[in-house]
């Protein structure tokens, strides 16, 4: 479904990604793990078209998307929960959600989705008319996830969704992700520091180190890999 082919990305003169190749198949949950600064967020931003790769291509549904404007990429069905949440601070919770569905025109279905998400995150419904910027950290994280879901993406990119969430909510969100994946065939690409959790729900995983893919394979296999266990699972 999504294919990164030999991607190199630079910040000015500093190279952040070296020859990255990643494949995600329809209906999969794939996770990307790696230490701080390994280049995980950079990878997601490259897929979304915010950062242009200097070499290599990104293919989505048999179409090259590297070089397209970000709004075109969203339109093709890729949406992202970015690192740091990026809530529109002065817009209300409800308006933030509406913007998630910015490119959709099916008003009735949008309203349904909104109701569904309010059901999933009751606190958001309570805070409906509050400016997004005044929410607590965890509430913002929920909003960011809900906003991405409002786009009904074919491929959902998540950058550390569990950051700042209470354990109960984290669990709940991962259940939602599984459900989306099973029932709606949403493909998910997950970046997560909580590698334990990520490897548990993912089908496959990639490990990134200093901008290079160093390991890849079945999530279950990687979870038993001693290197991974030591470096990322804290065992």
């Amino acid at each position, binding site marked *: 479904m999504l294919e990164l082919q030999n991607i190199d990305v630079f910040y000015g003169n500093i190279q952040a990604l070296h020859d990255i190749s990643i494949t995600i198949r329809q209906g999969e949950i794939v996770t990307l793990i790696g230490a701080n600064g390994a280049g995980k967020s950079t990878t997601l931003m490259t897929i*979304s078209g*915010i950062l242009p790769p200097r070499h290599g291509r990104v293919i989505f549904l048999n179409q090259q998307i590297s070089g397209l404007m970000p*709004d075109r990429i*969203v339109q093709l069905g890729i949406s992202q929960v*970015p690192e740091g949440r990026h809530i*529109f601070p002065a*817009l209300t919770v409800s308006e933030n959600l509406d913007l998630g569905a*910015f*490119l959709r025109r099916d008003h009735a279905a949008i309203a349904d989705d909104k109701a569904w998400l309010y059901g999933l995150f009751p606190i958001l419904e309570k805070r409906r008319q509050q400016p997004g*910027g005044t929410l607590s950290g965890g509430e913002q994280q929920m909003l960011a996830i809900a906003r991405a879901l409002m786009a009904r993406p074919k491929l959902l990119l998540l950058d550390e969704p569990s950051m700042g969430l209470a354990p109960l909510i984290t669990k709940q969100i991962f259940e939602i992700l599984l459900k989306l994946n099973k029932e709606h065939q949403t493909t998910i690409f997950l970046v997560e520091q909580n590698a334990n959790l990520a490897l548990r729900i993912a089908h496959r995983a990639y490990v990134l180190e200093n901008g290079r893919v160093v390991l890849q394979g079945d999530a279950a296999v990687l979870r038993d890999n001693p290197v991974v266990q030591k470096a990322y699972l804290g065992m």
Partner: protein
Amino acid sequence: MEYFIELLFSGLTRGSIYALIALGYTMVYGIIGLINFAHGEMYMIGAFTGLIVAEILLIYQFPLPAVFVLTALAAVIWSSAYGFTVERIAYRPLRKAPRLAPLISAIGMSIFLQNYVQLVQTADFLPFPSLIPEFAFLEPYAGIIGSTDAAILVVSLIAMLLLSVMVKWTRIGKAMRATAQDQKMALLVGVNVDRIISFTFILGSGLAAIGGVLIASHVGQINVFIGFIAGIKAFTAAVLGGIGSIPGAVLGSYVLGLTESLTTGYVSSDYEDVFAFALLVLILIFRPSGLLGKASVDKV
């Protein structure tokens, strides 16, 4: 009392004049946080284009309403084109630059455009034909409000209403607000940020051009420096109302215009600007985000 009403209307006229320019200021500021010092030049260019077109049409003896409509149209088209081009050349390359770089670029653009028009046209004052006919029904009140005053008042209110509705309710308005707050995230929800910013400049410049034609026909003369002076006042008005807020820009303009006219009326026109600026300072001390502005949300 009659005197007060007279002053009230002259304040409203002045306020509406500021409002026509302030609206564009506030929109551009709202979307990219730039004090666009070149915005006043869009107004000036609108007025010059308007003068050129109006003169030609008048020479060919078009009827006055047609002259007015075509003049305004041409002014809007070219001012918008300038607004669009200026953004592309002077501001877009600076999107990610330090905050003050685009401000300096805007000051440079303002100087450039003034001198450009001076060079290709003239530095002299030029008479601007009166494009708005004397409305018969206003004649009894001519001592208080003229037909041009009325036209300016009405147009500024309509512009404010349309813009507010647009920003609050339409898709493009939503996209503008999203872009204003977080460009990266706006991209990630599928907003074409470049296009939205261009659109804002086009809209703001077009409004300024309508202002240019109306105001020039009210004042009866133009030169290349009108943009700068009016720009500073309009900017003040926009901040007073709460920068980024569309009703705020209009309210701020009225407050400014009224302060000036009442100061002139009851104190002295020597100090109209002193009072206006002092009021601005006072209001901002008690409402640090202007009359209708929202305090910026900064969750700790």
